[in-house]
């Protein structure tokens, strides 16, 4: 196991909750979320920031957490898929994905939801081109994206 002196102390707020942790400098943000905090909704698909299954918001910006070190999140704020629903109620984006059959195996879905969240924060009325661009970094192998496009359009209308 790594020596204690190799560990770095970090503070990070995830889905509104403060955490103080000792981490290896090489620990990835996605590993911190999944292994240290048991927030397993954020997934790893490609390890090289192509697929976006690991997308989370870090300080309000969508990042691919498989390519961000946990220490980079020190002092920061993270939103993951687990933080979208409020008081057990699905976020309108989640609801729209469900209504439009915008997911099948569900492995890419957490990343897609976060990318959509970011898109709609920045652009309440996205065109189809905006939508395609916003999720270009989120690979889905099941849906062929058709119902994802419908879900995002519906979420934008409802927002």
């Amino acid at each position, binding site marked *: *196991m790594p020596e204690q002196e190799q560990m770095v102390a970090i503070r990070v707020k995830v889905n509104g909750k403060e955490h103080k942790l000792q981490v*290896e400098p*090489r*620990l990835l943000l996605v590993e911190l979320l*999944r292994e240290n905090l*048991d*927030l*397993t*909704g*954020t*997934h*790893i*698909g*490609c*390890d*090289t920031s*192509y*697929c976006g*299954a690991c997308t989370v918001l870090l300080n309000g910006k969508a990042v691919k957490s498989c390519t961000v070190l946990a220490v980079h999140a020190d002092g920061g704020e993270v939103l*993951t*898929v*687990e933080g*979208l*629903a409020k008081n057990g109620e*699905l976020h309108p984006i*989640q609801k729209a*994905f*469900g*209504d439009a*059959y915008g*997911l*099948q*195996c*569900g*492995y*890419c*879905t*957490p990343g897609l*939801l976060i990318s959509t969240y970011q898109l709609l924060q920045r652009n309440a009325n996205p065109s189809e081109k905006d*939508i*395609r*661009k916003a*999720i*270009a*970094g*989120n*690979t*889905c*192998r*099941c*849906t*062929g*994206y*058709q*119902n*994802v*496009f419908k879900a995002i359009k519906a979420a934008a209308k409802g927002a």
Partner: protein
Amino acid sequence: MADQDKSNGQKRWVGQRVPRKEEGRLLRGQGKFIDDIKLREMLYLAFVRSPYAHARVVNVNTSAAEALPGVAAVLTGREVESLTSPFIEIGPDQCQKIADYPMAGSKARFQGEPVAAVVAESPRLAEDAAELVQVDYDPLPAVTDAEQAEKNESILHENAGTNVVWRGVFEYGDVEKAFREAASVVEIDRLHFHRFSSTPLEPNVIIAQWDNKDGRLYYWCNNSFPSFAIQFLAPHLRIHIDQIRVQTFDIGGSFGIKITNYTQMAVCALASRKCGGRPVKWVETRTEHMLSSAHGNERTFLNTRVALDKNGVITAIDSRHIDDCGAYPRYEPLGCVIWSQVFPGVYRFRNAKIDFTQVVTNKCPVGPNRGYSRMQHLWFLERICDICAHELKIPADEMRLRNYIRPEEMPYTTPNGCVYDSGNYPKMLEVGKKLIGWDEWKRKQAEARKDGRLIGIGIGTTLDSGTNNFGQSQIINPYAPFSGNSQGANVKLDIYGEIVVAVGSCPQGQGHETTAAQIVADLLNVTPDLITVRTGFDTERNVHTGFSGTYASQFAVSGLSAVHGAAQKLKKEMLRLAAFTLNAKEDELELGIGAQGPEVRVRGTERSIPYGGLANIVNVNSAVMPEELHEITLNCRYIWRAPFKVPDKAKKYGNLTLTYASQLHIAVLEVDRDTYVPRILDYVAVDDCGTVINPPIVEGQVYGATAHGIGAALMEGCFYDEVGNMLTSTFSDYTPITSVNMPNVKFGDIQTPSPHSFNGAKGMGEGGAAPIHTLSAALQDALFDKGIIIDDSFNNGDRVYHLMQQAGKGKKPARVKPRAVPA
């Protein structure tokens, strides 16, 4: 939400847009994928892999790795060989001489093959330690081309003495007579279907625990055909099959690729045993997945001759096919017969001779990738149809209408004895042409051609054969112990009357929880939300047969037939018990939802008993039951068996699949004159999978299969250099299709109910790789005038550029030879 059934006023859920029961947990990030599971004392495994495609493993030095603090064990290929028996080989003769182990012992046969495995306290430590394992290799000549492999100049498996895994001739009708009488013959020198993978987003993940407390081997894994995996694992690990418990939960896609992760399941088990029974987790990286999980079959079609009559109707095909299965056969050589489920595709020709060979090469072993083995053949047939149409100057749509099997011929027996249950290909073409605006596009195309623009319109008609007759394995190996097909299910009223369905499938997004609930809701006259469906494989549920899993487009037929059978059995028992308790005749009873919830009541009276009341009697109040009702359990297991016979092995004749869903796609594309990149301008997908159980679930899978096909046709390929280095081992190189490459798909459907399934449904999901055929055809249409024959299934900008550069130089790859035959 539900329709009223006019006959009895009952609501019907089959055919409705029922929301998916799976959605809640997946949308909240609460899905249960294997990498989400943490077990006490868990260790992590990392593989050391061969950088060479073909090399002797001279020495493996593990001492530095073992000395690293936190490393629990290192396992080498040679050690694995000493502890296990080689995996079962399905093929005959030379295949039986291949010794397939999950790690390379004395020789590595593809780049990325594991040679050692390191187990450590954290995944990162395991990776560190894997880098400390020193392996000395002696490189050997690599064979990466199937035709080269066939020459046996460098042999992968010395014991077998040849790289040829299987060879057989499939011949039906009178081929030579048809060629003698042909009005014209078209010859095509070489066609090639490329290697790709539908590569699921979740990689292979396995947790194994060889528990020394009870001597059992526990798996939590994402294998997508676990009953097949345990049949391979038990003899390999030299244990009783009942010692193994396999559980799967949510699976992040498989598309067949996860069927062959039993090899890594074996290594994880041995590692756990070596570490005193601590659980061992292995999470595959994407690069490992691309290098060494499984790819789709690559196939070359040589010396093809096509006989046609004066109307352009194909009368015979003669061709030689070489399939490349990579370094080890594993699920192969089943692919050497599975293509023949769709022997004539959608076409009427009765005479054909296909000389089929499969070889090993120094590349990643193949596995049953979405559209498995049939898509290669269907692409070949569609290329033939399309090339002949162009050579004979017959419009593509007209060519197909002349050659399609006609709806009035259904059920249609193919030359090799398969029975196409139903279908209406001309109708699908009509629907497709209407959706795309065929005439308008033809007009636009003619205008654009005047400006030199390269626009093509292509049709692909294809089949998705579902519910295999495993007896086809005996066409490959007469001694293979498999035939037929079966699936199991259990439906019960639990102690408080809850309806619980268990099936032996392990869905990866296909919505089995939802469709199974729809079937049971209709039978028991309740709403689907009152039904709990336990999917995900678990040997301990005792609902699996040797065929259970999720593969080969079959759940709607095999899985749901089992669910339906079990629910019928339960309903019968409920009526019998209720007749006793209500002192009524069974035919006076009806099922429905009363004030207190689901109940059985005497029609037109207030007399009723809730489902919970029936469950109470059977489970905890049995003294009130008279002895003649003791056989009632309200816990009903049913095994559905497909009505198959063992095929005629010598003639290679018999029904190989139960249902034939069909797809017709039309694409309009334009080749960019500066970049040569083919761009899709319009796209239609028409689907027929018989009776549809849940329309948006079917539509969603059609879109998914369409994306895989478009990706494979234009972007995705598993490519190697000549010494066997894989060139596409990351997503940045492999470039899976994204939202910006995917066109809008216009969806259409027709429903020709299957006479072979209880509710008219056909298995679907694989989709026959229709876009690959369709886009090849569209490109052909765009480039035929340039003297180009589309002879490969992969056509990105680079490849189209080379085709256009080579056009007109050298021999034309396809030729038409008119014959002087009296009309």
